[in-house]
């Protein structure tokens, strides 16, 4: 039944009726499967992908590398939790390699993001160091091309 997830991941507009036809199930079976996924936390939400660059809204995105000290018995989980509770923090990943956690932070201005990092994140007692990279331009987000969205350039009719 992963097909339902794949279909919905690519197009959240699909109705259970559409999906049922596409994968040879009944709409009830699809509805049942979707609600099961929601209960289990497999499906966790739906959002719209927006290119804010085009919507005349200045939005600053920063990618932040964080080195921190893991805690006995809990590793990085509690620290991550402290980070992701902030609404400015859009994503948190535990990483392999030169640093421990990667954060994606959004704010309305450079100053806002900078003061969030220096005022809230860096001072946490488990944090050893942070390294902030500001995003200059987004080309592709969540698998979607932002700058040059594909356009249908085919003829209107052809054999």
């Amino acid at each position, binding site marked *: 039944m992963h097909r339902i997830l794949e*279909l919905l991941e690519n*197009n959240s507009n699909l109705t259970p009726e*559409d999906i049922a036809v596409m994968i040879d199930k009944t709409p009830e079976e699809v509805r049942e499967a979707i609600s099961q996924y929601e209960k289990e936390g497999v499906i966790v939400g739906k959002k719209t992908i927006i290119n804010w660059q085009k919507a005349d809204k200045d939005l600053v995105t920063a990618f932040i590398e964080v080195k921190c000290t893991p805690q006995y018995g809990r590793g990085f989980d509690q620290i991550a939790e402290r980070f992701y509770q902030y609404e400015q923090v859009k994503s948190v990943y535990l990483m392999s390699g030169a640093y421990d956690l990667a954060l994606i932070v959004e704010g309305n201005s450079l100053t806002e993001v900078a003061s969030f990092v220096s005022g809230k994140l860096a001072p946490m007692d488990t944090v050893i160091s942070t390294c902030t990279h500001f995003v200059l331009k987004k080309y592709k987000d969540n698998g979607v091309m932002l700058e040059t969205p594909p356009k*249908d350039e*085919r003829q*209107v009719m*052809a054999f």
Partner: protein
Amino acid sequence: MKFSPKKQINSVVANLPPSGIRKLFDIASGMDGVISLGIGEPDFITPWHIRNAGIMSLEKGRTQYTSNAGLVELKQEVANYMKRRFDLSYEPNNQVLITVGGSEAIDLAIRAIVEPGDEVLIPIPCFVCYDPITRLAGGVPVLLETKAEDNFKLTPELLKKNVTDKTKALILPFPNNPTGAIMDRKDLEAIAEVLRDTNIMIISDEIYAELTYTDERHVSIAEIDGMYDRTVVINGFSKAYAMTGWRLGFACGHPDVIGPMIKIHQYAIMCAPTTSQYAAIEALRFGDKDIEDMKTEYNYRRKLIVNGFNKMGLDCFEPMGAFYCFPSIKRTGLSSEEFCEKLLLEEKIALVPGVAFGRSGEGHLRVSYAYSVDHIKKALEGVKRFISKYI
């Protein structure tokens, strides 16, 4: 005396009918916001790794002619591909020819085989090129009208009825554009049975071979006992790898047929585009997964669209190949051209009338599902609104 270039035109060319969709095309082109399900090419763009291989070949300065029949490496990859995907063995040196699209391969095969007066059997409805190319070669097209009740397959009875001592070749265009019909192994064995004791050649246009939605993969008639030597298999990169604009196809067959085809090709074309040939090597080596991904997507859309037409009352048999469905509009009482013109003017939806693919396509529409699901759903809503006035 006034010189008239018009009078100098070869009468066969002058008498070829104009495109059956010219009028609709002109109307649609002049309109804004047309929702089309009327195109016979993939909506996917060529996978990036294939495009990149083309770019790399340009960066390396590979901008010259290749040998007439195509790059040795590419012919080898075509032979490997035919073996891997369709269990057919061809010698890359003298049994594989790289062409400018499947279209050139069809032209070459017909020209290499057909002499003035020879009859060529063409199942209709079908893609529009076989009839004119046969005429240009001086041949006589004999149209075999496949029927909705046979799911638009070519039946041995229909074939037998039309074989004469002048029959030179049979065109076998399956999986079929426009109907989406396929011929499975059993169907092909019945056709082979009719042909076995004749000298009839087969030009098997298998450009949609990778797009079948049955458990058994596409079977080529070349694989059926006694058919290999008489069959020219035509395939290409346009549909399987979404490479229409690269204009690259190929033909495989007996050296005694491919050789003469190469002769025409070298005089008319010289060689297929070099950049496209390098991209195609990449496609054949690393593109099997692209085919599967696109096919999975087409299959979802196929089910959605067939269900949509049947639910709104336009009977649509289940097409098992290509990316078309061919619903019947007989219940509306409109001809396919009337239907398409009214639909275009009233709902701004562009479909191709079935009759444009041969007279037995009348009473049907060719609907392409090489479009996104959202686009297809929107078009279906419009067609439903439209036909509610008629049924």
